[in-house]
C-alpha cells in the first residue's frame, strides 16, 4: 500500500469488561470518552446523541451560520478518529432510561445496555413564561437544530429582536447582522452584561455592539410576544408598553440544565442532576457532568452549576478518570473565561465582581484608551490580586493563573506585566501606559 496510508489494527475491546454508555456528545461527553479510552483500552464505550453523528464545537455554530466555516470544519476530530479509538457513535435520541435493567430506549425502538452511565445532556435555553413564547419564530441558540430552525426562518425576517444581553445574545446579534437583518437587543441591565461585568467594561461593550449597527435597548424588558393567527411572530411589546415590529425573537436569557430525560427516574435532581465532587449521582454507576450537573457541595463557595465550554472540558476529564476507576475529585482551579463581542476580545482570570456586586473591600485598577482597549486588575485590601478583565488586549493564561494562585501584589504584577502580554508581534503595547497609571493609583 501507499506509505502515507495508515494500517488498521485489531480490536482490543473485551466483551467481559464494563460497557460505558455516554448520553450526549458535547465537549463533556467526548472528553470523558477519550479519557476513559486512555485509561481503559479494553472497555466498550458508546456515545449516543440525537443532535449530531459527530462531535462538533458548539461555540463555532455561529461561524457555520455566518459562512466562515463549513460543517466539516466544525468537527475537532477527523471522522475516522472514533473507529480508531473504538468508540461507538449512535446518532439517535434517547427516549427513556431504565435503571433496573440498566438500559436506555432509543427512538428507533432499540435498547442499549450499559454497566456505567454518564449523563452529559447539556443545557436548554431559558424561557420565562412570556406570553407568545411558543410562536413559530421564537427560539434560543444552543443546538444544531436551533441553527437549522434559524436558517429556515431567516428568509422571512427583516427585523429581529433578541431578548437577553449575555454572550449568546451578542453572538446571535452578530449572526443575524452578518445576514443583513436589523437587530434589536433587549437588555434588562443598565449596560450590556453588567450583571457579570463591572460598569466600565459593560459600557465599552455596549458601545462596541452599537458601533456595529445593533440597536441595543438598555433597561428594557419583554412584556409579551405578538403573533398573528398563523402562529407567526409579528412583534414584541416591552414592559413600558413600547411596541417593536419584528419577524423573529431570539431568547438568550441564559440556559438551564437539560434534565427532562432523568426526571421520570429516581436519580436525584434539583435544578440539575445532583452530583458529588466526583460526579457520582444518587444512583450507583450513574454519573453526570457538564452543564446538566449540579454540585451538592461545590468547593469553597464556587458555582453549583458551571455552564462553560472550559468547565465542561475539565469536568469531562475528571469524570472520565472516575468512571475508569481512579480516585479523583474536581478542583476547577482559578476561574477563567473569554468571549468576543463583535471585534472586541474579552478575557477574564480570577474573580472580578460585577457592577451589581457589593465589593467595598476590593481595590479596582481600571485603564482604558481611545482604541477601546481596557484592562482591570482587582486586588484585595492588602493590594494582592484577585482577578483581572481585559478587553481588546490578549494576556497569557499561565502567567495570570500563577499570579492569582500565588496572590501576587499589584507592585509585582506591574513589575512583570510585560511577561503577560500575548498580543501578536508588531502590536503597540499598552503596558507602559497601564503600568504608569496603576503605579500612581496604587500609592495613593
Amino acid at each position, binding site marked *: 500500500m501507499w*506509505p*502515507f*496510508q*495508515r494500517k488498521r489494527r485489531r480490536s482490543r475491546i473485551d466483551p467481559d469488561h464494563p460497557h460505558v454508555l455516554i448520553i450526549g456528545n458535547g*465537549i463533556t461527553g467526548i472528553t470523558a470518552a477519550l479519557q476513559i479510552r486512555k485509561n481503559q483500552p479494553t472497555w466498550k464505550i458508546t456515545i449516543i446523541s440525537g443532535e*449530531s453523528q459527530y462531535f462538533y*464545537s458548539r*461555540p*463555532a455554530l455561529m*461561524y*457555520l*451560520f*455566518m*459562512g*466562515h*466555516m*463549513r*460543517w*466539516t*470544519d*466544525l*468537527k*475537532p*476530530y*477527523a471522522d475516522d478518529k472514533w473507529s480508531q479509538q473504538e468508540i461507538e457513535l449512535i*446518532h*439517535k*435520541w434517547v427516549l427513556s432510561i431504565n435503571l433496573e435493567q440498566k438500559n436506555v430506549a432509543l*427512538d428507533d425502538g432499540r435498547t442499549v445496555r450499559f454497566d456505567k452511565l454518564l449523563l452529559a445532556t447539556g443545557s436548554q435555553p431559558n424561557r420565562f413564561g412570556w406570553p407568545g413564547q411558543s410562536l413559530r419564530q421564537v427560539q434560543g441558540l444552543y443546538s*444544531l*437544530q436551533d*441553527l*437549522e430552525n434559524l*436558517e429556515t426562518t431567516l*428568509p422571512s425576517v427583516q427585523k429581529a429582536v433578541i431578548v437577553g444581553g449575555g454572550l449568546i445574545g451578542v453572538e446571535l446579534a452578530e449572526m443575524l447582522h*452578518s*445576514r*443583513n437583518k436589523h437587530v434589536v437587543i433587549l437588555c434588562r441591565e443598565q449596560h450590556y452584561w453588567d450583571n457579570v461585568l463591572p460598569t466600565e467594561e459593560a459600557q465599552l461593550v455596549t458601545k462596541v455592539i452599537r*458601533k*456595529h449597527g445593533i440597536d441595543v435597548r438598555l433597561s428594557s424588558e419583554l412584556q409579551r410576544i405578538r403573533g398573528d393567527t398563523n402562529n407567526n411572530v409579528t412583534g414584541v411589546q416591552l414592559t413600558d408598553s413600547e411596541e417593536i415590529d419584528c419577524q423573529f425573537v431570539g431568547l438568550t436569557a441564559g440556559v438551564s440544565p437539560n434534565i427532562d430525560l432523568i426526571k421520570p427516574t429516581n436519580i436525584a435532581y434539583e435544578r440539575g442532576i445532583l452530583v458529588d465532587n466526583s460526579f457520582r449521582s444518587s444512583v450507583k454507576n450513574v454519573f453526570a457532568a457538564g452543564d446538566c450537573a449540579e454540585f451538592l457541595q461545590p468547593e469553597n463557595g464556587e458555582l453549583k452549576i458551571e455552564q462553560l*465550554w*472550559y468547565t465542561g*472540558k*475539565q469536568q469531562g476529564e475528571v469524570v472520565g478518570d472516575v468512571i475508569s476507576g481512579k480516585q479523583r475529585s474536581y478542583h476547577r482551579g482559578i476561574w*477563567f473565561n*473569554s*468571549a468576543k463581542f*463583535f*471585534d472586541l*476580545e474579552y*478575557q477574564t482570570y480570577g474573580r472580578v465582581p460585577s457592577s451589581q456586586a457589593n465589593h467595598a473591600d476590593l481595590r479596582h485598577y481600571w485603564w482604558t484608551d481611545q482604541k477601546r482597549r481596557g484592562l482591570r486588575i482587582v486586588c484585595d485590601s492588602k493590594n494582592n490580586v484577585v482577578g483581572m478583565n481585559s478587553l481588546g488586549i*490578549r494576556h*497569557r*493564561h499561565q502567567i495570570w*493563573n500563577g499570579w492569582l494562585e500565588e496572590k501576587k501584589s499589584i507592585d509585582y504584577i506591574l513589575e512583570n506585566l510585560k511577561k503577560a502580554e*500575548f*498580543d*501578536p*508581534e*508588531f502590536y503597540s503595547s499598552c503596558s507602559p501606559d497601564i503600568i504608569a497609571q496603576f503605579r500612581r493609583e496604587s500609592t495613593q
Partner: protein
Amino acid sequence: MNSSLPIIGQGSVSTVSHEQVSLSKSQRAGLALAGLGFVAGVSVGIFQPKIEGWAPLLLVFLPITLGSLLYIWSTYAGTIPQIMNDGIVTRSIQNRGRIAYVLGVMITAFYCTLYWRPEYLVGLYSTLNPLSQLLNGGAADQWFMYGFMYTLAMLIMGVRMYFRYRDNAYQKARTFSVVFFQVAFAFLLPSLLKKLNQPEFYFTYFWPLKPEYLFPDSVHTLIQNGEAVGVFMVTWGAASFFILTPILTYRFGKRWYCSWVCGCGGLAETLGDPWRHLSDKSNDTWRLERWSVHLTLLLVTLVTCLVWINSWLGGELLGAFSNAASRWYGFFVGAVLSGVVGVGFYPLMGSRVWCRFFCPMAAALGLWQRFFSRFRITTNGGQCISCGNCSTYCEMGIDVRSYAQRGENIVRASCVGCGVCSAVCPRGVLKLESGPTSKDRFEGAAHPIREFIKSLKT
C-alpha cells in the same frame, strides 16, 4: 424530534444557503473596468496590432489595475477594521464552484502557453516594450511580461491584503515586506542589472528553490562574465542557503523567508489569500505532503550532485544523462509543479500547493524550523474553544486546532508563519513567537537528531 437534518446528513452546509448578496454599484463598475482591460489584453494578444509607444500597455493594464483597486476600495472602505470572513465558504468562486473551475482552467492555460507556446503571447508582451526598454534596455519577452504581471498581481492583491487585515499589525508588516521584496528584488533589480550589462540575478532566490544558481554552468558563466559582481552573486547564493538560512530560521522560523521574502510565497499570500481555506487538513494529506516535499528536496540534491560530478569528469561519463536529469527537473518541478499546478490550482486546492507539497526550499527550511529553531506558535493555556477557525484558514493545511485544544505549542515543519491562525482566533489563543531556546518547544525537542529519525518512521 427531527434527526435527519440535511446539515448533518449531507455532511455539507447545504442548508446554509446565503441569499445572493448583490454587489454594490462601485464594485460592479470596478469589475467592468477590469473586464474591459482583460478583453483588451486578449484582443491585443490575438490581433497583434502594430502600435508603438505606451498606448497599448495603458489600454490593457491600466483598466485592470484601476478596476481591481476600485473593487477592493468599494469592498472595504467605510467598514469597521476587522477580518470579514462572512460568506467565504458559501461563495462559488471561493468554494470550487463553476467560476472557480473556469478561473483555474484560465490560469493553468496561461501558464501552459507561457512555458510551452510563448509565440501566442507575442502580441501581449509586445505591449510591454516601452516599459522593458525603460527598465532593462531591451525588448520585452514572455518572461518580462510574466514578471510584470506577477508583480502587478501582488501589488493589487497586496492592497487588498492591507485593507482586509488592517486591524492586525503583523499582517500589515508582513504584506508590506513580501510585496517590497517582489517589486525591488525580483522585478526592478534584475532589470536594472541587465541594463547595466550585468547578469540578471534574483537575490531573493537561491538553491534549492533555484537550483541552477549552483549548477556548474551558471557558476562558471557568472564568474567569467560578471567578474567581481558575478563572484559576489555566486557567493551570495551559496551563503544565503548555507549561512543566512540556518541563522535566520533559528531566530525567526521559516517565516522570515516563506511569508516575508519569497516571491512564490508572496503570490500565495496576496493573490492566493481568497482561497486559503481550501487546503486539505486530513492526516493522509499530511503524510503525502511529508513524502512529496522531502522527495523533491532529495531530487534536487541528487540532480545538483550529478551535474557537478559530470562537470568534474569533463562531461565524458555522465554527459547526456546529467543534462537530461537537470532538464527534466526544470521541466517537471520548475514549470509543471511550481507554475502550472502551483498557481493554476489556487482556486481549487488553495494557495500553497507548491509550497506545501513540492518546494524543496520549504522542505529544507522546514527541517530547520522543526528541529533547530526558536520559533513556535504558543497556545494560550486552556482558552481554546475548538472552533476551528485556525485550521480552516491555515493555507498549509495544518490542523492547528488539534494542538491548540490540547494546549500544545504548534511546531510544524510546514508552518510558514503567516499568522492568520492567530488573527482569526476569536479567543486570542495563538501567538507566533520565538522563545528563548529551540529546546523547550515540544517533547523531544532537546534531541533533534533522534526526533528527526523518529519522524521518518511515523
